[in-house]
């Protein structure tokens, strides 16, 4: 099967290849979306945990500060 015949697909090349292209696009999009969702989520959670850690550390800081003032 020569290269040209292969792409021509007996005249139906356009339909066959657009189907395969669409399937490839959708599969890759599914995979990429899941991975980007994950990285966005991990970044957001890390920021949230850092905030929580800062929130728990802050009160002691303020308290010791007042104690020093008094």
């Amino acid at each position, binding site marked *: 099967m020569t290269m040209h015949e292969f792409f021509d697909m*007996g005249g139906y090349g356009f339909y066959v290849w657009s*189907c395969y292209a669409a399937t490839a696009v959708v599969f890759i999009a599914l995979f990429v979306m899941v991975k980007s969702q994950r990285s966005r989520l991990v970044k957001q959670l890390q920021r949230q945990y850092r905030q929580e850690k800062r929130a728990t550390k802050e009160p002691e800081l303020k308290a010791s500060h007042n104690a020093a003032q008094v």
Partner: protein
Amino acid sequence: MNWQWFHRLSSPKWFYQISERWLPWVMGVSLVLMAAGIYQGLFNSVPDYQQGESVRIMYLHVPTAFASMMFYMVMAIAAAIGYIWRIKLAHMAAISAAPVGAAMTFLALFTGAFWGKPMWGTWWVWDARLTSELILLFLYLGFISLHQAFEDREVGDRAAGVLAMVGVVNIPIIHFSVEWWNTLHQGATISKFEKPSLDPSMLIALLLMIFAVILFCSAIMMYRMRNEVLSRENNKSWVKEVVLGKQIGKMK
């Protein structure tokens, strides 16, 4: 009462660890199968005596249509389990299965239309199977938009659960009524009962592609479930370790 295994089975933490190990394998196997299937389908299987080369679209249309039906069932069963026994993991599975199923339904419609053009001369044919597929897409979109309409995710799960259960009861009715209404579509190409009307080389390609698509979709669904688990259990300590662990991992 040995509900212990059932309870353990439904703990998001357990799922997260199991999927950590198995997911790369599932994804790897599905990609290998897909490559083999495409190679078999495109290169060394005979063209159809009638349709010529355009039959190669079948290797995409049939697996995606099958996956769209299967994932609706997976979604409905998971939603029912989640609704009845209030298992969060089941709700997460249903929510993760919906977009994958919707993508497969869209692909099935796309490839069906592109296959119909050379065979029947028009892009869209009101044939029984394609119409049922279209209605299935509406049911998926209804499920996803209903779940997103609630800001409280737990209530969204329960609402979507009710809709999934009502939908799954209606699937056979819709399919049957559309089937009665007008059928142009050729009979089932492969079914376990009748002798397959396909040349063995085409049959191998088709089976390879069906397994590849199902494995790939399940892998995507499980990846989505892992994201769902992380975002819903974010106040749990094991999630903190996993997330922070990942950060340290990156730094090293």
